[in-house]
């Protein structure tokens, strides 16, 4: 059974533990995270700052800071192949070609001393060395047109472009090799709202054109609702709820954290005097609690929550990691 299921999934992450070994303490960024992604699927990864989303993305690409970051245990399988433990040379073949990443801040993501065209060209030089120069140039031009930048500008430098255009260039770099998996780490957070919509639309078009799977990391539920098929809600380095967009937003059964997140969004229709934030802060990743990580902020916290870590309960593909749903699950 496991072999055929593995083949179905493009990316399969099991019980991943990632930590940062700093001078002061060990920071447990990812704690027992599980995730499965099919080819062409659009998965949203939602969580607050510090939940471990970026760490997860970097771990998939094996780009954690060398001295400090460490994958403690777990498995990351890409098309059935275990990535952890693979030599750097293997990952070099994957990065930029089969899986690529878009980072959060377009202002600093591009090399200021290289032309925009050269930076996009570099992907082709690294992964398609056999193409002729003319073919490579043509592909670069084509990609620039696709993202809405005139090809005539490819000899210019990053500082000559606006933030939104820089992000388009980054997207062009990420997609020119037609990857199977695109990791987008808060691609629109640094941009203003109107540009956000354009960038998301662009990503959707390109994703359809190349049939890439996308993991969209964000802290905005709105973006997730608009763009994604499925959602994983992350808290303190692990998934606390997973399901389709309809299940997460529509179903009555919700993880208290997800409920809190949705509640945070003020309702335009209602006349509300105060915002409803979730009180408290995420657990210190240096000293994780014994029981449920959300216990001290949860309005439904029970005694068992403080000492026993909750199990993942599942119904029709909708998974919730919470003691509240114990009765609902037959197992």
């Amino acid at each position: 059974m496991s072999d055929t299921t593995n083949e179905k999934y493009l990316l399969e992450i099991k019980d991943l533990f990632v930590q940062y070994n700093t001078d002061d303490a060990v920071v447990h960024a990812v704690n027992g995270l599980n995730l499965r992604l099919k080819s062409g699927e659009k998965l949203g990864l939602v969580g607050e700052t510090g939940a471990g989303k970026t760490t997860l993305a970097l771990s998939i690409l094996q780009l954690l800071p060398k001295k400090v970051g460490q994958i403690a245990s777990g498995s990351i399988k890409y098309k059935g192949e275990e990535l952890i433990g693979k030599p750097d040379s293997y990952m070099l073949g994957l990065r930029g070609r089969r899986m690529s990443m878009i980072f959060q801040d377009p202002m600093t993501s591009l090399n200021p001393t290289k032309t925009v065209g050269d930076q996009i060209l570099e992907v082709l030089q690294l992964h398609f060395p056999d193409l002729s120069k003319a073919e490579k140039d043509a592909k670069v031009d084509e990609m620039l047109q696709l993202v809405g930048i005139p090809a005539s500008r490819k000899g210019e430098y990053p500082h000559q472009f606006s933030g939104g255009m820089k992000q388009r260039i980054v997207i062009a770099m990420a997609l020119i090799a037609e990857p199977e998996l695109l990791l987008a780490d808060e691609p629109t957070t640094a941009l203003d709202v109107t540009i956000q919509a354009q960038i998301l639309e662009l990503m959707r078009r390109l994703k359809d054109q190349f049939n890439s799977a996308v993991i969209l990391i964000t802290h905005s539920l709105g973006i997730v609702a608009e763009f994604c098929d499925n959602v994983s809600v992350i808290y303190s380095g692990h998934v606390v709820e997973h399901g389709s967009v309809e299940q997460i937003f529509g179903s009555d059964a919700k993880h208290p954290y997800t409920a809190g997140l949705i509640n945070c969004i003020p309702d335009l229709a209602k006349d509300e005097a105060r915002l409803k934030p979730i009180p408290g802060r995420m657990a210190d990743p240096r000293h994780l609690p014994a029981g449920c990580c959300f216990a001290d902020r949860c309005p439904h916290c029970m005694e068992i929550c403080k000492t026993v870590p909750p199990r993942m309960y599942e119904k029709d593909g909708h998974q919730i990691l919470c003691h509240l749903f114990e009765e609902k699950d037959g197992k």
Partner: protein
Amino acid sequence: MLIPVILSVTFILFVILSLAPGDVARMVLGQDATPEQVATLNHQMGLDRPLLVRYVRYMGNAMKFDFGRSWTGNFDVLAEFSHRLPYTLLVSVLALLFATAIGIPLGIASAIKQYSLLDYGSTFIVMLLFSMPAFWLGTMCQIFFCLTLRWLPVSGISTWKSFILPPVILGANTLASMIRMSRTSMLDVVKMDYIRTARAKGASNHDVILHHAIRNSLIPVVTQIGISFAGTIGGAVVTESIFAIPGIGTMLINAVKGRDVPVVMGTVIFITIIVGVINLVVDLICALVDPRIDLAS
């Protein structure tokens, strides 16, 4: 842009040097000179006129490339300076080449292999060089390599070997600057987001350093070279004194000791101009290397 600065610098220097004891004529003529002789010479040299007049006369002459004659020696300031300049420049340029050719690669290598023996070693060398007086290093090396080991000539400019030790001593401080600056710059660059982007594209460590990191890390280093040059000129004085090189430095030291105002004035002005030009060139190079800098500004 440079011209008004030069003009004002000459004025300030002139003011400073005018504080030199008025009785230069007495110094020139000796203690036995009669008051009349002193007064005559003072008048001849124009030293009894008000400051501004003297300044204008000086600048007027300067426009005609006449910077006066030495008060203690028998030479024309500009001519002697031009005669001696090549030696000083040669040693300085060699020093710069030495410092950059060894310092920059060493600094970059230390950054790439941080915490390695190479890194600790070069940090140690930097520490030593920054704390060591150049004249001490020069003197000790001269004694060791020239007198004890007899590998190199002690002084003068007789053979090509005379130009090995002086540039090394002169360049020692710049070497330390280069190592430290390129190391720091490289370490900063490697942490930048665009390096992470390059890795995410599948660039290997080797590619990243060669094609992305080095060019960006060299930008602050070029600026540092310009700054170091001014210090190198100051250090040339010491180096020339130790190795008896007939350059600007030795002329200047004698002039200061002898309170030979025209020589000091001329020398300092010329060198300030040279340093200014070098800094302009450095700025131009920076603008060429860094596309963010607008050449027009």
